[in-house]
């Protein structure tokens, strides 16, 4: 076991998998000798050579399009999009191509690829270095969408994503890249996709969250425990698509009071899906309305980003609302 930050764990996951499988390639802007703008690919070109970790021209459409071609022809590409905000030129390639190849070709052509990209706020990145676009992609059958929140999960989920036969969008919470260290298993370490992680036990209420909101929700649950002795369960969804719906419904039923937290805008956001799922499958067990704590339905601000992003206090307020509801 080694103590790693989340971004180091991503790096470790890439190295571990590249050592094991020579078809794994890394491509993207500045991923080569520089090691990526966040150093997630540091040392890969030095260890594996330019054939396996290489810089590309500045074109997200090209990176994903070429990645799809590599995957169609026997490689396991891990494409890096420098910031999730820059992914939209490749939206067509991801949504209409990578996610649909298996379906449209009756399984004759498939795209086992991973698209890694840092998402979310908290680094004073303004409109174009802070967005959380998961909802756009979760509306895409054929794609998998994964969001780790700890170093161990980052490595374990990344290795599972690379081994997965379908395209996976791997959203890395950049606010957590270097926020804490954790022991991460050495060598091949897998965390299965489409499973949730219970971060903190509890039966009085449950908070569903993912990515950079997980530590925020943990702090909120601690404060509620201190303030009123309530036991709030925190569930890290980890894979948003395909979601482990059964686990979500079971946790909602067990607790009866639900808060959903994400930093993306609220309208048609991922929290709406969780709320609807609970309304359809667990309404009889609900003791309070589902409450969402999210970013505002505005573009992402810069100077005032700390007022835009949900913090522990906002989650505490929401928890109090559901806990006090009669």
């Amino acid at each position: 076991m080694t103590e790693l930050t989340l971004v180091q764990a991503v790096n470790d996951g890439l190295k571990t998998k590249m050592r094991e499988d020579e078809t794994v390639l890394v491509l993207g802007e500045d991923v080569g000798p520089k090691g990526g703008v966040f150093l997630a690919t540091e040392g890969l070109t030095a260890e594996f050579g330019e054939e396996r970790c290489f810089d590309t021209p500045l074109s997200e459409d090209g990176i994903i399009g070429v990645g799809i071609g590599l995957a169609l022809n026997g490689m396991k590409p891990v494409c890096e999009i420098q910031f999730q905000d820059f992914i939209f030129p490749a939206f067509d390639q991801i949504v209409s191509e990578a996610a649909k190849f298996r379906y449209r070709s009756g399984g004759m052509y498939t795209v086992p690829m991973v698209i890694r990209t840092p998402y979310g706020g908290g680094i004073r990145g303004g409109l174009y270095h802070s967005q959380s676009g998961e909802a756009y992609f979760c509306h895409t059958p054929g794609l998998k969408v994964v969001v780790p929140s700890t170093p161990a999960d980052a490595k374990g989920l990344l290795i599972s994503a690379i081994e997965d036969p379908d395209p996976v969008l791997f959203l890395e919470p950049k606010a957590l890249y270097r926020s804490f260290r954790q022991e991460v298993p050495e060598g091949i370490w897998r965390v299965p996709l489409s499973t949730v992680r219970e971060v903190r036990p509890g039966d009085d209420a449950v908070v569903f969250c993912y990515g950079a909101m997980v530590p925020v929700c943990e702090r909120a649950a601690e404060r509620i425990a201190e303030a009123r002795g309530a036991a709030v369960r925190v569930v890290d969804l980890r894979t948003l698509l395909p979601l482990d719906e059964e686990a979500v419904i079971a946790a909602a039923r067990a607790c009866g009071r639900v808060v959903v937290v994400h930093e993306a805008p609220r309208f048609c956001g991922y929290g709406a899906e969780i709320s609807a799922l609970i309304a359809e499958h667990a309404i009889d067990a609900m003791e309070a309305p589902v409450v969402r704590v999210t970013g505002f339905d505005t573009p992402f601000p810069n100077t005032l980003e700390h007022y835009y992003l949900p913090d522990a206090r906002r989650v505490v307020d929401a928890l109090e609302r559901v806990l006090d509801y009669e």
Partner: protein
Amino acid sequence: MSDQLLQILDPTGRKVGPAPRVRREVLRRLLRAMLMTRHFDDRCMKLQRTGKIGFSVPNLGIEAVSAGAAAALDPERDWIAPSYRDFAMAFYHGVSAEAMMDTQFGNAADNNRGRQMPVHFTFREPVRFLSISSPIGTHLPQAVGIALAMKKRGEDGVCLASFGDGGTSSLGFHSGLNFAGVFGAPVVFLCQNNQWAISCPIDKQTASATIAAKAEAYGMPGRRVDGNDVLAVHKAVTEAVKRARAGEGPTLIEAVTMRMGGHSTSDDPSRYVPAELLAEWREKDPLIRFQRFLVDQGVMGEEEIAALDAECAEECAAAARAAAGKGRPALDTIFSDVYAELPPHLRAQQDWCIRHYSSRGEGVDEKGEFPL
């Protein structure tokens, strides 16, 4: 070099350039692929007009581009990333009219399991004919990735990417050619310049003097060929394939031709294509000149060509009859192949769907003749 038009056969079938050495068997296959395409087109038009299939895309006038290019490839090691107007590429490599018709009908035997519109063919055997999507130009960077994979493995395969003049305005054209140039990927970019992107003429598509000229900006050679001259297309693509195999990188080829039919069966080109232009191009028909050449060179006799023509017509008619009777794909094909494994939420939706439509007596056993 890039603005000169390579021509070997003039519209009358007379040799005006040095003829490449092409084996007789290849010449016959080229003719067959072009004739098959013409008859298949004709049959699909009738099927669409009588409501048996929903849609097709006429290949009339451009057959030499697809056939000539396909003949330059080796199906054992090469890939085709086709456009939707490349039926002759599949026919050249031995895809049967019936397999093509199965996709036209979207029946139970369709490789795409009835999921795509007609014309969006997918084949793996006898040639890697990449699944076609409708958005334009997306397959160009994919072709670069396919080619790059072979280069990285030290193989000598090539990927041919085919697209139209409209495709040169797409995002994928720029990223595809740019990445191919930078990586030296073994790709042949074949632009079928048929002068129309639905109703948009080439002079409203680009201000470049030629499409081949665009190659220079990406650091690769550009060639311009008479797209109605199957031997010229074959020669240009063969040379580009040779370059790519030798590790010399990509080439852009502009095959100048004319779409003699509509964009699709839903289009009425008489609203925007001048009749004089069509009349002018009718004289340049790729089949007329190639057939004259074959007869003049003693490769095939006129009777032999007539017999082959009749055989192709019958194969297409028989394929349509067979495909029409294969029924619809099973209801669960809505849900399979979304992922390698059916996730629980899709299993639940699938179970519901089958239960629901069964209770209505629908969607269970849809055999019989199209249109169903």
